[in-house]
């Protein structure tokens, strides 16, 4: 009986290993050549949110790659805002999430929405990285110093000092209407974000 259980265990664990050992797939653009750092598969979420849908979005002011400082409050009453936190420059999933938003520029405009891209990297790193992307149409903000302060305020700063892959949709009144703290290993589907913007109408 004991041997039978052992045999079943070997068979099941062997089959499971065949499935589990297949790594997470990520399509990588040739635009980055061999310059993306492979992070491996990480703990999907490693922080605790400090805001919730319905809250007033905490204001912040951060330096942008283009030189000027950008505050969330400057869009109050004018535009909806999407905050796109991505974990790190020069990593596979982050490096194609934002170029995808380039293609969707017309849709953001259609929903009268500004997109703010945020990472905890410093400005020179973000400058080089977004140039390699072929540049993006939206402000790219550095939450480098005090390190990750905005990410921490929203509750998306991971224990190793990078941010989560997270999306916050904020309406023109400054109220949080949608939050997606996504599995860091996966790119959020564009349609989910656009569905959230559709609901702002």
């Amino acid at each position, binding site marked *: 009986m004991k*041997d039978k259980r*052992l*045999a079943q265990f*070997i*068979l099941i*664990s*062997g*089959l499971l*290993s*065949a*499935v589990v*050992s*297949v*790594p997470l*797939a*990520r*399509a*990588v*653009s*040739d*635009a980055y050549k061999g310059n993306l750092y492979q992070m491996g598969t990480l703990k999907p979420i490693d922080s605790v949110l400090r805001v919730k849908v319905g809250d007033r979005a905490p204001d912040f002011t951060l330096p942008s790659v283009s030189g000027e400082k950008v505050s969330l409050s400057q869009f109050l009453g004018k535009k909806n805002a999407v905050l796109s936190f991505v974990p790190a420059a020069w990593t596979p999933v982050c490096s*194609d*999430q934002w*170029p*995808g938003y*380039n*293609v*969707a520029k*017309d*849709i953001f405009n259609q929903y009268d929405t500004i997109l703010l891209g945020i990472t905890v990297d410093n400005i020179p790193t973000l400058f080089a990285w977004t140039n*390699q*992307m*072929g540049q993006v149409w939206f402000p790219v903000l550095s939450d480098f110093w005090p390190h990750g302060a905005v990410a921490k305020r929203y509750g998306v700063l991971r224990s190793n000092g990078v941010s989560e892959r997270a999306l916050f949709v904020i309406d023109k009144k400054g109220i949080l209407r949608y939050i997606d703290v996504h599995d860091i290993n996966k*790119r959020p*589907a*564009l*349609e989910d974000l*656009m569905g959230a913007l559709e609901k702002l109408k």
Partner: protein
Amino acid sequence: MKIILTALVLITFSISIQVLPALAANKPPEKGEALPVINLPVPKNAEERNYLGLSGGDLFKIPQIKARAVIVELFSMYCPFCQKDAARVNELYRLIESNPLLKNKIKLIGIGLGNSPYEVEVFKKTYDIPFPLFPDKDFVIHKVCGEVRTPYYMVVKINEDGTHQIVHTQLGNYPGADPFLGVVLEASGLNREEKERL
């Protein structure tokens, strides 16, 4: 009992090493090979169905396309180079379609690796892409194509007996419609056939 256990260990190990390559190839498809197993949905759009010469059914394989050569662009909506090349790949389509000698012989399709149907549609609309695009939301095709970087171009020659082989591949470096068409004609043998016909 020991013999049975040893046999089980060997069987499961053997299943593991056979199943893994089937799920994920370790290199992109290359010249001289046959395509990996790629099942695509038959387009709902009649114009696209006619373009590919497909009559019906739910799924089809690339060699079922009615053509002598098929150009397959593996792309991603999220890939900057794919975005940059989109208009010039459209030119390739128009160049082929405007040539009465080529339009029924060469077809062009795109597969959006890791892209949902919505994302593929956004890409198609943004760049006004006239040829059929297919989503690969769950990375199934991406895996069987060795998790290739994008854009990756394949030219597939389809023989009269229904067999096929990949006659050209390239990662990025799209040279523009005219030179790329030259590569397609040369690699697929259509150039030679045309010269012999004359």
